[in-house]
């Protein structure tokens, strides 16, 4: 298949200027349309890995190759949804998304098309009603929806989610997870998501990448979640494949590579 290894992370190592080695020998290939979660204890370097794929951090060794091109700088084809939404507080919800749309499609879409595309993406995350509000006027979950809309509007080749629901309460989080699943089913994005929530990883992912503890962290194991889509959180809960995947992740995190007790 030609689209094999759409995104390929090859022998990536990152050592910071201070001499501390964060990642060593990370190898991962991701197919087009695949949903991958990266899970691990705090401080294991999973955010570093995501930043490397985003191009926000340079690699020390190895390379990241997306659609046959080496990644060496950040760009809209690898849109990031940051953990703390990072919407610009002086712009309205609409303008935050429009900023991205204007930048990415300045030459390829007309003004009216860009307006429509902005509204389309806000509708995709069900935020049309708040388009004229400032970020400070909407809830945390809504901010993450807008952050997601901004990322989706760039039509990225790979969507990078950096613990996107980490700061939200459980109900809001479940709502957003469902939205992400729906959007993934509709658009078929390739997604790389950082999380430390086992259930979230199992519910959303095709494969779960489990990272060993730092320093010099790497990929410890990969679990394939063999569940058909669309998945419903209620039905999936008792399926053997779900239970097995969940058990494998918990076993890895708490038995084979336990984090610091004090950090738990």
């Amino acid at each position, binding site marked *: 298949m030609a689209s094999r290894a759409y995104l390929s992370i090859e022998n990536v190592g990152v050592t910071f200027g201070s001499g501390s080695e964060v990642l060593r020998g990370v190898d991962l290939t991701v197919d087009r349309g695949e949903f991958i979660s990266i899970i691990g204890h705090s401080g294991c370097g999973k955010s570093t890995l995501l930043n490397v794929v*985003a191009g926000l951090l340079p690699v020390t060794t190895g390379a990241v190759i997306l659609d046959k091109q080496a990644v060496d700088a950040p760009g809209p084809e*690898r849109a990031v949804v*940051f953990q703390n939404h990072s919407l*610009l507080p002086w712009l309205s919800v609409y303008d935050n998304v429009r900023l991205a749309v204007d930048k990415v499609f300045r030459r390829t879409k007309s003004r009216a098309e860009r307006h429509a595309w902005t509204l389309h993406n806000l509708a995709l995350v069900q935020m049309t009603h708040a388009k004229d509000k*400032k970020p400070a006027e909407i809830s945390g979950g809504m*901010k993450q929806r807008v952050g997601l809309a901004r990322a989706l509007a760039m039509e990225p080749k790979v969507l990078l989610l950096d613990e996107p629901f980490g700061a939200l309460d459980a109900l809001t989080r479940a709502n957003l997870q469902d939205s992400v699943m729906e959007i993934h089913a509709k658009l078929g994005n390739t997604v790389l998501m950082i999380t430390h929530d086992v259930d979230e990883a199992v519910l959303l992912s095709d494969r779960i990448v489990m990272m060993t503890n730092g320093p010099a962290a790497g990929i410890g194991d990969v679990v394939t979640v063999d569940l058909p889509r669309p998945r419903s959180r209620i039905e999936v809960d008792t399926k053997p494949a779900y239970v097995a995947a969940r058990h494998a992740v918990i076993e890895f995190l708490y038995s084979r590579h336990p984090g610091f007790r004090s950090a738990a």
Partner: protein
Amino acid sequence: MSLPALSDEAAPRSGAPAQIVPLPRPPAVRRRAAAVARAAAAHVLPPLLTLAAVLLVWQVVTSQNPAGLPSPTAIWRDSRELILDPFFDRGGVDKGLFWHALTSLRRVAVGFSLAAVVGVALGVLVGSSKMAHRGLDPIFQVLRTVPPLAWLPISLAALHEAQPSALFVIFITAIWPIVINTAVGVRNIPQDYVNVGRVLRLSPLEYFVTILLPAATPYIFTGLRIGVGMSWLAIVASEMLLGGVGVGFFIWDQYNASRISDIVVALVWVGLVGFALDRLVALLGRIVSRGAAAS
């Protein structure tokens, strides 16, 4: 303050029949006006009372010794014309205080505007480039401690004329807080916003307009507010030495004529104008940075 709450509770429910309302009540508009008046009184009354107390003490202390500082009543007796008519103009420097203040304000407007433009530009440079920071910051830190009046002989020597020298003194006094606060604002832009700019591949100009400037605006206005206060300090001081029309020279002139009462009146003007300038810049800042508060 408990009175309005009580009358609100006693007010009839909207569905109640009309005949059980025995007393005429103040209409809502009048009640709201009363609330506004009360709020205003709560803010205006304390400073007025303080002022009255100060004037009283001043009167008591100074009335013993007529050769020293004039008492408030003596000031009113000696300088009534100056207080009541700020707009007279008998040519030369014999003008009402309004004209003196206006001349000083014009100088501040020019000098401060220059300082704002150059200061923000330098602050952005120092805040965004590590090399510029290393090269310029130590020099700024030394220069900013030079008192405004110390610049005057140098600027007179360099520029030869009084008017541009006064402007330069304002400029050089006001610029440091603007530079330093702008630089801090630029350096404190959250990494998240910087990353958004990088992911979107904003050009330097786009980054400047859409992220850097709005993110640093609250800091910039803090600098501008300190700067405008300092430039008003500097203008009064430099006019004392330079002469001509202006509040600073007026004070010096009256001192030489031993008219201490007039000086006190001028000081009140200086204070009020400085206060107004500060509030004006603060208001501008609030308007410009509306919604830019971190969320």
